[in-house]
């Protein structure tokens, strides 16, 4: 059949042009690997966590907990411990175990906090004889009474604590001591998913945790033979309406969901970079196909001359790409498993603490791998194959007549694509139709089109720009430099296509740089002008601070104003809002919220301060009343007492009294800010504050300047992480320049032979190729910086003012990127320059 002839030709062509084949395959494989790696990593983590939570709630058939009025991350309202007796009275309930998890922290002999690497430190109640929580005793007996504790075996081993030792621990009620009676673990493991644990008996826990006779949940095991649904119904009908009963499966599901939200976020973040990598690969594949079709002009024309139809030529080229795409995708799937392992190792090295057990490959991952790998290859070859089909047969004898078919109407198409891409991007960023999906479609799709368009249009400026870049090289390196400059300028289209991949990587880094600088500048600006606090107290684990810390600091005479910042969510007219709660009188001293009307310090109980945006959205003015519904069912009517313009601390502010009056959930402060009293110098203040919080070793005390530095460092870190994630794409881009150049060297075999014959030495030959690569990569870097800076500005303007209100640029990073561009060129030139300088002169001249 005719398909078999095209298939044969495609197969043969792949084998005959092995170098090019490998180069394209590497580009596809790399892209697919990163995509597969991201999926495998996320799926594996999801499975591990799901399994973990299934195991945890294995013995729990039912759970009683308080009702939540709407979905929120706020802690549920605790329930009365006396409910346990009511639950036990129900027929079919075999075990009813109250659970109570609060903050508790071991303190070592030096008075320092004992903290597992990054994990939370928890205190729990433990009813050993009833135990259905999956807690296992590694050594010893369960703690009983106020002087006994159990701790997790992992922490015990690390801190060299044995059963019988006395330990000090800190809770919301202060420091306590106890004798370790047992080391415990979860199932077979020695730890509790990375958390450090202090376990007390129920009465001790209620007392020491300051739980006020309330527990989080009551977990229930149903007696053998009793029907779970019946017990559930009995519980529902006999208990008060402020609590609900859910099944063990639901408990596991919800717990896993919480973690998986994080896994999803993490996995999707990785996927974005994976797709960027694939997109860059697509550019290179397209470029290589484009060039090789030019090189095979006579062969393709010959096929047309001996009777191949345009369609057959196209099918042959597409067939080649298809075979390549499939093989490279298969390799990419295996590569993806390696990438997943690598990522887990890398993140764990950075202290992420991911479990490494399972590697999950879902059929979905394989399908997406093929869609991406084969899809990107097919898309890349679409245009080149169409052009190849248009090569006239007469080109077999007169190749010069064939190149017309390979010409592209780039400018018009390129400009259209650029404009459409830009418009979509702007609409996506500013108008934001269609939520997250709209953002992906408009901003993401527009961004892709913009890159394609700019890559295409940049060929029109390639000649003057590269000539300018090449000028110093020409002056410095004489003949090789001049040759490099001419060679880059003589094929502006190819120059711009091969620089395009690098351009994309560089522009993303540049955009991130602008975004990060603006973020930092805005932040520093707020910190310097609006925040007048001298100290910021934060907590390194994500649990928040115990209210005791703020109370202690408030007692320090050297400080004139101290307030914790706490949060609660509440519904206003059906929409969930985040309310910040502060000590308003102190807050006024510590922060200038750009008050427009009303008061800050005079905020009363049942008063609220509103940012201008929601105020105008909801038509609020001083004296307006709003109804707020909280997750525990409580409601309050708040009166607007102030309207302000700086949203650093959020859009809604209430007093701590208001918060405490509506919620019994354990209080946690995000951070605490405080200010030196008049006349107290910084040194005295530092000493006094440090002494006051000595008994809370887990808190992190920073001065305003230190806080600013640490935040700046975090923003820089973010930029570094983004750059590292883009590294894959940039490596591929360098590979792309290398391939293009190697193909150019191959094309110019005769010319290079001629130069060598008339006396150019190997070193000069190498040098000429090397500088050619540097000019191309620098060109890509410059276009990338310009485009990326523009994108960064748009991005910065698009985010709300409370995150970024000032644009800033970072010249250092631009210089680093430019140097990186030159280095990329030098790396890309390694192979092609070696190839060019090692040509046999006679053979090269004899080449047609």
């Amino acid at each position: 059949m005719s398909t078999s002839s095209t298939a044969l030709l495609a197969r043969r062509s792949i084998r005959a042009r092995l170098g090019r084949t490998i180069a394209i395959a590497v580009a596809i494989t790399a892209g697919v690997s990163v995509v597969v790696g991201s999926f495998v990593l996320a799926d594996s983590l999801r499975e591990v966590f799901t399994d973990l939570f299934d195991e945890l709630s294995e013995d729990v058939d039912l759970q009683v907990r308080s009702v939540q009025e709407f979905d929120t991350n706020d802690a549920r309202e605790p329930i009365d411990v006396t409910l346990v007796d009511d639950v036990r009275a129900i027929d079919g309930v075999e075990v009813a175990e109250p659970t109570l998890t609060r903050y508790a922290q071991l303190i070592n002999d030096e008075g320092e906090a004992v903290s597992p690497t990054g994990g939370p430190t928890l205190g729990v109640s433990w009813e050993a004889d009833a135990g259905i929580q999956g807690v296992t005793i590694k050594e010893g007996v369960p703690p009983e009474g106020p002087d006994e504790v159990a701790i997790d075996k992992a922490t015990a081993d690390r801190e060299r604590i044995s059963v019988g030792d006395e330990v000090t621990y800190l809770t919301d009620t202060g420091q306590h001591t106890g004798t370790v009676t047992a080391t415990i673990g979860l199932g077979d493991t020695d730890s509790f998913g990375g958390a450090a644990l202090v376990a007390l008996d129920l009465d001790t826990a209620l007392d020491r945790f300051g739980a006020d006779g309330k527990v989080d949940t009551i977990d229930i095991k149903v007696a053998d033979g009793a029907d779970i649904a019946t017990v559930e119904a009995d519980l529902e009908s006999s208990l008060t309406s402020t609590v609900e009963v859910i099944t063990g499966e639901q408990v596991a599901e919800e717990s896993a969901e919480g973690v998986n939200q994080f896994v999803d976020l993490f996995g999707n973040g990785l996927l974005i970079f994976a797709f960027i990598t694939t997109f860059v690969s697509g550019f290179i594949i397209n470029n290589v196909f484009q060039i090789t079709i030019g090189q095979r002009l006579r062969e393709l024309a010959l096929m047309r001359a001996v009777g191949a139809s345009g369609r057959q030529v196209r099918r042959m080229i597409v067939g080649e790409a298809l075979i390549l795409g499939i093989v490279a995708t298969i390799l990419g799937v295996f590569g993806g498993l390696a990438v997943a392992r690598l990522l887990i190792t890398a993140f764990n090295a950075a202290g992420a603490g991911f479990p490494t057990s399972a590697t999950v490959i879902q059929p979905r991952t394989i399908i997406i791998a093929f869609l991406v790998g084969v899809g990107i290859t097919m898309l890349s070859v679409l245009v080149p194959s169409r052009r190849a089909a248009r090569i006239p047969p007469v080109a077999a004898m007169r190749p010069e007549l064939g190149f017309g078919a390979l010409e592209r109407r780039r400018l018009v198409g390129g400009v259209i694509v650029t404009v459409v891409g830009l418009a979509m991007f702007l609409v996506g960023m500013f108008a934001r139709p269609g939520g997250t999906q709209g953002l992906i479609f408009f901003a993401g799709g527009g961004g892709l089109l913009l890159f394609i368009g700019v890559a295409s249009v940049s060929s029109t400026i390639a000649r003057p720009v590269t000539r300018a870049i090449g000028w110093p090289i020409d002056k410095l390196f004489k003949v090789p430099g001049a040759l490099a400059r001419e060679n880059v300028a003589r094929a502006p289209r190819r120059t711009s296509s091969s620089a395009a991949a690098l351009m994309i990587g560089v522009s993303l880094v540049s955009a991130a740089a602008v975004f990060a600088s603006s973020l930092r500048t805005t932040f520093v600006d707020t910190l310097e002008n609006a925040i007048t606090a001298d100290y910021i107290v934060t907590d390194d684990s994500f649990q928040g601070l115990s209210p005791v810390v703020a109370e202690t600091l408030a007692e320090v005479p050297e400080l004139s104003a101290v307030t914790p910042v706490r949060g609660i969510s509440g519904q206003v007219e059906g929409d969930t809002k985040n309310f910040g709660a502060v000590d308003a009188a102190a807050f006024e001293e510590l922060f200038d919220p750009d008050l427009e009307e009303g008061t800050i310090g005079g905020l009363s109980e049942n008063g609220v301060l509103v940012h201008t945006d929601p105020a105008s959205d909801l038509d609020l003015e001083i004296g307006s009343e709003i109804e707020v519904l909280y997750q525990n069912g409580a409601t309050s009517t708040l009166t607007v007492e102030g309207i302000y313009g700086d949203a650093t601390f959020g859009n809604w502010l209430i007093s701590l009294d208001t918060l405490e009056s509506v919620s019994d959930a354990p209080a946690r402060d995000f951070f605490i800010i405080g200010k030196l009293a008049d006349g107290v110098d910084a040194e005295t203040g530092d000493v006094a504050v440090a002494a006051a919080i000595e008994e809370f070793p887990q808190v992190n005390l920073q001065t305003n300047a230190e806080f600013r530095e640490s935040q700046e460092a975090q923003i820089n870190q973010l930029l570094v992480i983004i750059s590292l994630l883009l590294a894959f794409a940039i490596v591929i881009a360098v590979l792309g320049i290398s391939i293009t150049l190697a193909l150019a060297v191959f094309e110019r075999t005769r010319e290079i032979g001629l130069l060598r014959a008339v006396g150019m030495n190997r070193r000069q030959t190498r040098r000429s190729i090397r500088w050619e690569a540097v000019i191309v990569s620098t060109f890509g870097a410059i276009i990338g910086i310009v485009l990326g800076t523009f994108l960064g500005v748009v991005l910065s303007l698009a985010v709300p003012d409370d995150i970024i209100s000032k644009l800033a640029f970072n010249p250092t990073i631009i210089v680093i990127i430019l140097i990186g561009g030159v280095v990329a060129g030098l790396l890309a030139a390694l192979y092609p320059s070696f190839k060019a300088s090692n040509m046999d002169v006679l053979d090269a001249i004899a080449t047609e």
Partner: protein
Amino acid sequence: MDTPAPPAPPSPPQVAAAGAVDATKIYGVGDAQVRALDGVTVAFESAKFTAIMGPSGSGKSTLLHALAGLDTLTSGDTYIGDTYLSTLDDKQLTELRRTRVGFIFQAYNLIPTLTAEENIRLPMMLGGESGDAEWIDTVVTTVGLRERLSHRPSELSGGQQQRVAVARALASQPQIIFADEPTGNLDSTAGAEILDFMRRAVREYGQTIVMVTHDPGAASYSDRVVFVGDGKITGDMDDPTADDVLDHLKQHGV
């Protein structure tokens, strides 16, 4: 120029295998305009080996390309058998090249990735046919390639490569074979071999061949020489010898 001009389309003469009627090809515009073909009318008989001769730039290659349907004319027409090529679309031209025309070029005749045998079968493969096995066998024997069938072009000498090209042109038994300086890149021995094969194909199997050359020696293998100069037919000679051709060229001052 005794060959009768064919009657007007659409019924080309049955005597000629191919020909051109008032064929004109103009490249460029304005002052840069070049008339590569200037109203050429010529016919080529079946089962004959015709050479087209002329100096560089005379238009002989353009004429050949137009005759073979590889290139289009500015005005006028060319035909193969009873088909006027201007009436065909690209698809029909492709079909015509595959089934009714054979080609031998000066160089780059073969697909580098295919073996000699695959190159010979290529036109048939493209049409999804296997061809006449017995005939292909005969062709392969005639050109003496049996030992080299599984070799790639890069493993063959220039002469062997041209033999493969001749075999490919013959294999599909086309109505007419066009050869463009087939011996231009070969030494005289290898060139003579190729020309001999071509002449045998005409004499023994009744193949029609039209060959462009500027070598009087090569032209002497043909049955008839058509001279081209400045885009026009300048002479026509039957049963030429190398000396006859040389004389003609001298007389016409080219």
